[in-house]
């Protein structure tokens, strides 16, 4: 998306020139086709590294925690929601962050594109309009971008950054969909079916913690997994330890997870991690009428006590 790239560079250049920020966190071209990677720009001459395309999948809010400098961040809808939560949790102050908001059209799931090509290696990709032109050794194919979006993008109802200091494009049309329909469908399955599905998924987990480390809201100095006294959960790949790790992490993110999908994308084994997080997103919405990251003024329900908080689990166990 060359127009967005130009606009982002323009904003970045101006911010550095006017010394409004010390650092700009954005994206640059990756070292392989279908990859763009986080990029840290501190000097004007590096501004032209910044780009915007359908592969800017990382949640850059991850890099904001406890920064001392003034920083600008190129954020899509989900990234900015994470920034909002981080501000509310005092991990960075609003004054320190300059939000370059990007109304997002969704990010392309590179693994599904690769799977579509059935093992043929993609050597070049060109994005034009809503199409990806893929080229490899002896083949060239065009795919429709929208067909290959990440699942979290397909059900995203917050494509537009909820706050920003500058928007680099016109607002994107929000999808009109029930973003919890998959959760309801899963809830409707029997306990046995759900247990079997989750066991199978988590049997793939190798405890690499990419999910935790990619998540912008997982910023604890010492993660509960690393606590040895008390030891909350075992560190081996024992099936119940693995599931307990994921369940506990999901609960630690309840009311804070913005469903950006960074965890799922980081997982090398393709574990369906968001299955747990989305259940909690739905429950928090139902019980507290709250969705993470939508407003700086809205207090986070699980760290705020209100006399009218739902308590039927205590009164009617």
């Amino acid at each position, binding site marked *: 998306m060359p127009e967005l790239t130009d606009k982002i560079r323009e904003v970045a250049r101006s911010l550095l020139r006017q010394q409004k920020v010390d650092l700009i966190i954005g994206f640059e071209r*990756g*070292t392989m086709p279908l990859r763009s990677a986080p990029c840290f720009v501190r000097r004007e001459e590096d501004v032209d590294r910044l780009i915007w395309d359908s592969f800017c999948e990382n949640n850059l809010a991850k890099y904001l925690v406890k920064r001392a400098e003034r920083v600008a961040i190129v954020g899509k809808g989900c990234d900015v929601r994470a920034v909002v939560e981080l501000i509310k949790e005092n991990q960075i102050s609003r004054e320190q962050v300059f939000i370059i908001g990007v109304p997002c059209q969704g990010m392309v799931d590179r693994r599904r594109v690769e799977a579509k090509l059935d093992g043929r290696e993609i050597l070049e990709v060109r994005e034009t309009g809503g199409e990806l032109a893929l080229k490899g050794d002896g083949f060239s194919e065009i795919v429709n971008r929208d067909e290959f979006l990440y699942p979290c993008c397909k059900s995203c109802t917050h494509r537009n950054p909820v706050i920003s200091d500058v928007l680099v494009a016109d607002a994107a049309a929000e999808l009109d969909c029930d973003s919890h329909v998959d959760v309801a469908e899963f809830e409707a399955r029997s306990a046995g079916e759900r247990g079997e599905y989750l066991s199978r998924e988590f049997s793939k987990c190798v405890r690499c913690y990419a999910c935790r480390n990619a998540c912008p809201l997982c910023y604890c100095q010492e993660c509960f997994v690393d606590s040895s006294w008390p030891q909350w959960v075992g560190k081996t790949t024992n099936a119940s330890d693995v599931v307990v790790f994921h369940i506990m992490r999901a609960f630690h993110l309840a009311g804070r997870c913005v469903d950006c999908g960074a965890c799922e994308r980081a997982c*090398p084994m393709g574990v369906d991690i968001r299955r747990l997080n989305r259940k909690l997103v739905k429950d928090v919405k139902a019980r507290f009428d709250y969705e993470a990251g939508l407003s700086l003024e809205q207090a986070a329900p699980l760290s705020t006590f209100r006399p009218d908080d739902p308590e039927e689990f205590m009164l009617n166990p």
Partner: protein
Amino acid sequence: MRAKIIRKEDIAGLLESLMGEYEMFAPVKSDGLVLFERISSASEVFLDYQNSLMPPKQLTFPQAETLFSYSSAKGEVKIEVPHREEKPQLIFGIRPCDASSFVVLDRVFDGEQYKDPYYLQRREKTITVSMGCVKPRITCFCTSVGGGPFSTEGSDLLLIDIGDRYVAQIVSDKGAQLLEKRGFRDATEGELALAAAVIEAAVASMGPGVETDGLKDKLDSRFDDSIWQRLSEKCLGCGVCTFLCPTCHCFDIVDEAVDSKGERIRIWDSCQFPLFTLQASGLNPRPTVKERFRQRMMHKFSYFVDNYSRVGCVGCGRCITECPVNLDLRQVLNSVSRLEGVK
């Protein structure tokens, strides 16, 4: 080279005939991922792949391994090492980079002073039938680190795909034994020439990779350079690169017990994890991502050379393709080498 011919349609038969004698492992497509798994039928084998997601290192160095179980009663402690299954294991369809990774791991676990019986027992009963890479990936850089798409290091047999058949290069006696008395004919001069052409083309197709000229000395002398801060800035500090790396061998040892009975288990660990070097006093010699990231590069390309006279990397490229933030080791090492690129 000593080589036999195996037609592609005969591979299934060969595997089936070996399945009685060996526990067989081969690439299998599972939930969209290519992994090395135990197979019970040749039809499960999936060869239309460039490399597996997980390296087969877990076949000699599993993610979790019980070192011993124990039980303690008054005044007495019984320690029992788990009984190892005796059947040899055959890894079919392994790539040359992964095959040579076993040779790299041997340097660590088969030391002069100390030997690891758990690794060695599995290693000794492992036989590898490797599949050379006709089409290396753009992220492969085995040729930069002393390997190649048809390198024979660590293989007992190496299959070279020349179209409708394989030239099966016999690398070791174990490999020769596999094909013995099964009626495979010797490869002709013409077939060997075809194989040589395939190998040449594959090597020529490989990208620039890592500049290894004087790399170790440059890494050593640039240890304190400020470039490491910039290079590691986007690193998340997760363990993907280390867990997917065929030569990474760091591990943790944990005890799991219920009352007076328990087990001591070895599990994969990662130098990227913050607790890896944390001392009980609270001192951590590698307190931030920068030190930990640098450690991985230094270990593989300098310290390993000091200790074992070879680079501790086989160039498989998994750390490049799977890193969530596309932190590319080739870019990192070349930047340190040239001390440019990232300011």
